[in-house]
């Protein structure tokens, strides 16, 4: 079973929920936690451990000057500006390339070859006896987050229970993370921004076709608008985490409330059971 944790708005507590859920579940079974927020992965802060790193490469064009006639087709095709055909050579901007391969297809001379280029890495570790953490890390200045997410998810394949912690937002990296998930936990907070972005995220999971439930984090007890929205959209609210200094204090020193505060392990077990029900598949 694969569970994605997403939010729309950043800072609502995706990683808090993912880390606590992973820690809780790892007491009774093998769990793989995948940090798909590759532009700013942070789950390793909850689970420090020695990692084994695997580089992630994507194909980028290399021009054979002996075959190239400077016809300009590749540069006209590339909508990302990764190729500039000039008077006497083709200039390649590999960091602008999205690895679509179109330049090699449109080249009438067969002068475009694809060569691998490192854009990031996947860091694998086993911080707890039954927990494997797989963190995707996109190199600074790179644009191909989905490639690193794909690699991280690929390394997690074959495990019976996998959690995907998504990046904020609703763009390509989130969709890449959601693909293939059995259920999604949408983490929100009871603020106007939290609700605004929950609406967007709920629409995305619906379009991708993934059943979802909502976790309200930092609740001040006045969640009516969020509850109304969830009722309207048929989204079950499967956990509410109160706005509490005690919880914030544990969180701020990199601790997990499921391990350190009484009652929370049971609540994360209940969260998992609710997600299993939503997914409609056997865990």
């Amino acid at each position, binding site marked *: 079973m694969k569970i994605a944790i997403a939010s729309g708005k950043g800072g609502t507590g995706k990683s808090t929920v993912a880390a606590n859920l992973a820690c809780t579940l790892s007491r009774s079974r093998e769990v793989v936690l995948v940090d798909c927020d590759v532009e700013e992965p942070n789950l390793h802060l909850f689970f420090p451990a020695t990692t084994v790193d695997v580089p992630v490469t994507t194909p980028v064009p290399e021009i054979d000057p002996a075959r190239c006639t400077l016809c*300009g087709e590749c540069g006209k095709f590339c909508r990302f500006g990764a190729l500039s055909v000039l008077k006497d050579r083709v200039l390649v901007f590999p960091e602008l390339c999205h690895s679509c391969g179109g330049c090699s297809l449109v080249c009438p001379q067969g002068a475009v070859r694809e060569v691998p280029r490192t854009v990031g890495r996947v860091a694998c570790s086993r911080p707890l006896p039954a927990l494997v953490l797989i963190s995707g890390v996109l190199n600074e200045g790179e644009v191909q987050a989905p490639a690193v997410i794909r690699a991280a998810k690929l390394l997690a394949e074959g495990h019976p229970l996998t959690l995907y912690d998504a990046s904020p937002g609703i763009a390509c990296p989130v969709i890449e993370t959601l693909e293939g998930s059995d259920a999604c936990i949408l983490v929100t907070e009871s603020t106007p921004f939290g609700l605004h972005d929950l609406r967007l995220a709920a629409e995305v999971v619906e379009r991708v076709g993934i059943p979802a439930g909502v976790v309200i984090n930092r609740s001040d007890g006045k969640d009516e608008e969020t509850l109304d929205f969830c009722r309207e959209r048929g989204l079950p609210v499967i956990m509410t985490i109160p706005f509490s200094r005690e919880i914030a204090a544990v969180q701020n020193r990199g601790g997990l409330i499921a391990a350190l505060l009484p009652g929370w392990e049971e609540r994360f077990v209940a969260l998992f059971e609710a997600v299993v029900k939503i997914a409609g598949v056997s865990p």
Partner: protein
Amino acid sequence: MIVGITARAAGTDAPVEQRFGRAPYFVFVDTETGKAESVENPLVDAAGGVGPRAVQMFSEHGATVVITGQVGGNAAKALEVGGIKAYAYRGSGSVADALAQYTAGNLQPLPLA
């Protein structure tokens, strides 16, 4: 020699556009014959990477000099490798005015490297 000037509209009376890759028009002027060709820039609304693509358009039109407000890093690299010199025109005048200023030697070259 062909000079390419970034412009807000077609023709040599159009105001100069300060942006390079997202200028609505490129006006190419042949300094020998005085003929001007205006090309609508298809990259105005493109998502990204407009600099290098605009440089390819200048190269295809045989321009060896560009007059614009400023250029980004990728465009600068492509201009340099492509042997196209770039000059800064910061005024609010027309394409014709920018060209006159260039011919009079009043425009500063834009640093490319």
